[in-house]
């Protein structure tokens, strides 16, 4: 092996390939949506179409997460916090999954403790975390996914809950190990939690750092993911 080959920086290769893969996937999904639009409604609402749609969103989410983790590693993930209208933010998250929610007959709703709530965070980064969680919930939800925004003292809390079977007990018990990246045995779910925690922690204020938490005690009866943003 020559020196040149030895010095090939594999993480850079991954990053640039992921970038191309995202573009490719984007075109694929567009072409697919277009082909679908030309079909009569009953032909376009089949189970297979739902799978294509769902899995491509999931693939996209994984690629975003992978790129995000790479950038965190090389300290190139910019944090751009801004004041957001929280209702606008939650609405946008549901809109991203609009097609798939409708195809699976899952209702996507949101509520806020205070309708005029404003939040201070990076909407892109937090959006990618929330989007991955919604994606995961869609897989387990029977009929409903609910987003909620509340305040925990001075921290904004966004929660995503569903009416599925909830997180496995072992995940709830060992969540601190997942979020710290110690245990990756569950594959993408564990990685998702790790990513969520890292993004949450980038948000800091007066010494307080953001964090995430999993639980199974929500009104809908399924699992609930919460992210605290100081």
């Amino acid at each position, binding site marked *: 092996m020559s020196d040149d080959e030895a010095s090939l920086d594999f993480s850079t290769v991954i990053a640039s390939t992921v970038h191309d893969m*995202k573009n490719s996937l984007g075109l694929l*999904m*567009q*072409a697919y949506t277009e082909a679908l639009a030309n079909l009569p409604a009953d032909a376009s609402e089949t189970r297979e179409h739902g799978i294509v749609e769902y899995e491509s969103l999931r693939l996209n989410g994984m690629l975003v997460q992978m790129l995000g983790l790479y950038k965190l590693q090389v300290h190139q993930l910019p944090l*751009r916090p801004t004041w957001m*209208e929280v209702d*606008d933010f939650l609405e946008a998250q549901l*809109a991203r999954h609009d097609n798939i929610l409708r195809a699976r007959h899952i209702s996507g709703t949101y509520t806020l403790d205070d309708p005029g709530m*404003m939040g201070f965070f990076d909407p892109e980064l937090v959006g990618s975390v929330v989007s991955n969680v919604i994606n995961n919930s869609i897989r387990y939800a029977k009929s409903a996914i609910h987003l909620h925004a509340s305040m925990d003292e001075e921290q904004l809390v966004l929660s995503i809950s569903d009416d599925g079977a909830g997180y496995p007990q072992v995940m709830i018990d060992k969540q601190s190990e997942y979020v710290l990246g110690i245990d990756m045995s569950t594959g993408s779910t564990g990685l998702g939690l790790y990513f969520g925690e890292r993004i949450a922690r980038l948000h800091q204020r007066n010494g307080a750092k953001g964090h995430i938490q999993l639980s199974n005690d929500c009104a809908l009866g399924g699992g609930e993911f919460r992210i605290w943003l100081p």
Partner: protein
Amino acid sequence: MIDYSKKRFLVVDDFSDFRSSVTGMLRQMAVQNVDTAANGDEALAQCRRNAYDIILHDYNLGAGKNGQQVLEELHHAKLISPHCIFVMVTAESSQAMVMAALECEPDAYLTKPFNRASLQQRLDKLVERKNALKPILDALEKNDQQTVVTASEKAMAALPRFAPQCQRYLATALESLGKHAELEKLLEGLVNDRPMPWALVALADHWQRIGQLDKAEALYNKAIGLFPMVPALYDGLAAIAAAQGDTAKAQEYLQQGIRISPNSLSRQAELGKLAQANDNHEQAIRAFRQAVELGRNSVFRDPENHLALATSLTDQAGDSSLNSRALVEIRQTLGELNKTWKDDPVLAVRSDLTQARTLAKTGQTDEANRLAQAAAEKITTLDKFFSAETALVVAAQLRNLGQDKQADEVLSTCAEMYGDDPKVMAGVASQTQDPAILSAGAQAQTWNREGIRCYQKKQFPEALELFRKAWNSQPRNVSFALNTAQSLLRLLAAQPDASLKEECLQCLQQVRSMPESDHRYERYQKLCATVDKL
């Protein structure tokens, strides 16, 4: 429900599939009027023809301009109204955000892939916001900054959800009105608790502008701790270091900024200049090469970068001769310069002098002399003279090429035109001891200073007399001529007089050779316009 049927859209993307897919989504939203463009130049051309309500622009367009460059050109050419919604569509938003200059950000980012629901949700919010802030945007369109201030303050109180946006409009307006105390109060309030990058940069830049360098430096550093990926913060630190004379440190800071965002033409050019000052030829070459490259598809291209690249390549060789690769690059660079700015005789002279130095270095002495001599002769026929900074460079080049007589003449003209600026005279003095050049304007400068004092005390006839004496003694001096013209115009406004008007025209005629880059050029044009109206 927002009615999109009357709104005019422009969709820009290099993939035709994407354009048709977005157009399809827009049709579902009842949009009737959609234009498309496949690249930045097409987008700019469309914007010249039509005023769009909403532009959806892909960031990464492959070869040619990227979305950020197009947005900057749209602002520069005033082709985009404050009411227009510009959405940057990206495969990955963080990359585009780092590249966005803080003063030229899109209204929103939209990450690919997106569906119709996401697009509509985002546009609904943006339309709602632009409608709510209409009074501010109207004032911005008229460049009526005072009204921007009052409208922003009103909107902040009435519409808390749009307050963050209004604060930004308010800060920009206060800055352009020079309302330092109010700007400082606003920004200090904003950076205290939950600081946004723009507010930190704005406050630190403000302190730097008013000379509070220590405070500015501390804030830039604090902000970098919070947001290490904002290149504008490194620009600020570099400017402070340069102002304190530490060009080595300034260069380091700019290099850090460039690592984050390598595609900024102005930052690369600035780095090149600092590296040149630090005799770091390698870095200077790299930076100017980038600046030339980035300028290739931009309205912000600047011939100075071509000249500086050729000069740095020659400098790098030191006392040894130039290698053939450098020679090829110099020839290409100057060739591109001559071709791109072929109607600019001042640049042609500078290009020839740069070329002559390269020839001299490669031992082609006769050829170098011939070119230098021709350039020296051309200088005497130029309609426009050099800026002070350029004149000093050109004089040094001429002297190095053995053209002492023409070098002195350039210095002498420079001293006459710009000699009222002590910094220019210091530059002249570093190249010549000739008292005829160095003290020719001394008496005239005293008259001019006294004239200014009289003018400030509203003793206008006395001021005119002194300015006139200064001007008659140094007729090519820009300040003296403009001061005389302005004093004459003051008299003429009260009472028309044909001979005074004639004198005023002569003053202005005399300084027509001032380069357009001169900071007094705007004043010169205003005076010309005033005379014309008499």
